[in-house]
């Protein structure tokens, strides 16, 4: 049973210019209750890897540089 690739828009976006992941910051990744953020291997910055969001906002509120933005997922909006 082969798999399909299913693409969705993601509610959490990270401004690469403001993100300081390269300095070792992992705050947003650490605090996410659903563990959906990770380092993007291509950019070295944080990104939303899994579209499994409770739009709860610790990632945005705790980010030290204001790089993270939470939107309401499209299906609920």
């Amino acid at each position: 049973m082969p798999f399909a690739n299913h693409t969705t828009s993601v509610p959490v976006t990270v401004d690469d210019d403001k993100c300081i992941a390269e300095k070792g910051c992992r705050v947003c990744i650490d605090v996410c209750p659903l563990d959906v953020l990770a380092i993007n291997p291509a950019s070295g910055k944080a990104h939303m890897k899994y579209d499994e969001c409770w739009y709860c906002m610790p990632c945005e509120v705790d980010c030290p540089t204001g790089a993270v933005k939470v939107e309401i997922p499209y299906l609920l909006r």
Partner: protein
Amino acid sequence: MSAFDSEMKTEIVETDILVIGGGTGGPMAAIKAKEKNPALKVVLMEKANVKRSGAVSMGMDGLNNAVIPGYATPEQYVKEITVANDGIVHQKAVMAYATGSYPMIQYLDSIGVKFEKDGSGEYNVRKVHHMGTYVLPMPEGHHVKKALYRQLRKHQVLVTNRYMATRLLTGTDGRVAGAIGVNTRTGEFLVIRAKAVVLACGAAGRLGLPASGYLFGTYENPANCGDGYAMAYHAGAGLANLECYQINPLIKDYNGPACAYVTGPFGGYTANNKGERFIECDYWSGQMMKEFYGELLSGNGPVFLNMTHLAEETISEIETILHSNERPSRGRFHEKRGTNYREKMVEMHISEIGFCSGHSASGVWVDENARTTVPGLYAAGDMASVPHNYMLGAFVNGGIAGEDAADYCASTDLPAYDAADVAREQARVMAPTRRDDGLTPFEMEYKARRLVNDYLQPPKVTAKYKIGQARLAEVRDDLSALCVKDPHELMRALELQSILDCADMAAAASLYRTESRWGLYHWRVDHPATDNENWFCHTLLYKDEMGRMAHKKRAVDPYVVEIDEDEMGAYHQLRTPAIAAE
């Protein structure tokens, strides 16, 4: 597959007390156990990170059940909760909560949790319940988790973040012996041997499918998917009154609280499409939900939260509370929809079903010491059976569990366990990692939860429930094809299995109680009347020696606070007189 080593890494740790769940009740259990006996080793296992985990990840906008001298007495509160639950309560546990309520508020105040006070420094308590006065706003309640975290560090509680407990270990003598956990980022195993275990894993809030179709658009934190209920069940503990579902009146699609408890004392109210009130009391009871459900289906639906008549300064104050605590993204939601509280009523709907004693009465059975039916195993918070206990109840009952567990540890040793149990559990956990193709956790979860909506949502119809059970059994058979490619998906695959266990328990518990009770929560269309002669009792669901789901009745203990016959009906007359007369 490449993300998993073929050799499993397993670490074994020994402790006095293991607390599973680092949200609300869990940290308090750990803190109070250490306060009782600082020499004890206490490990707190958390699936996410204790800094921001659980239902109060972003704080809380108020206490819904504060029993504060001068406003309410423990006796009044016990009476209110007994009446709101149609009499089926273990009053001693509700009383233990009620008497612990005010000391806990003072303790939380002392560690930096902020509550609303008036000019003279007194708590500013407000009325929402039908009878008493118990609501204390928390306009600056966003610091709850930070205050807890400071105490965890101060008391040197050992925290293991990103480990998901999958099963409890049972000792060869029947006592609880610890738990098995798996790291959600590496797939490594952690076996924790303990003398006592406190379960504080939250509600089963990922059971039904939200109407939006978004799997994680739930009222509860979706990490609270029923792991605690499933672990307690497989360890042989009794689960009480699971048929008394959690169904909440929420902002449509956003699926967060509307929130009548916050807005009610300011003059906000629940209204139908004519802008009229149709219920007298916005307190979440089964009867209130039945009135809400009826209004939605009538020509008077949808149902709204109305604040349009309030003064500008009142609305600004409500916005400040609601948009900075508990679910702060609601402001963003309203903005996109063009909903301004000043001009437009907020459209509401009822939630999908779940288990939760925090708001309802469906939980792992506990007595007034937070003890389950398994020796050494405790439960607290949304997943334990103390009804309507909300955040403050999680703190109080968590504290009770921690203190009692500390005493219990003093007189017991570390139970022996069978290593074969660990090997069997590791094989179950890792099975989906051993397949190269098959079904994904996402599609299996979607299907299971869609079936919950189609067949288990009240009104409960026996014929639909039987079909639901058969279809859910088919999904369970499909677990043999479940396939994951990384540890994150493995976590979702394990959560799916908790959800399936909870769905089976919801169906079986509902079919067992052949009467209707608790308004919408247990409305059995084939048994529409309340039958006090046969069903004025708790139901306990448990796993029998053969591994089958079994049930028994448990008598309601003699009340510690007597209730008059005429008081018992207080929550049955919630419809406003003008509408009721139509």
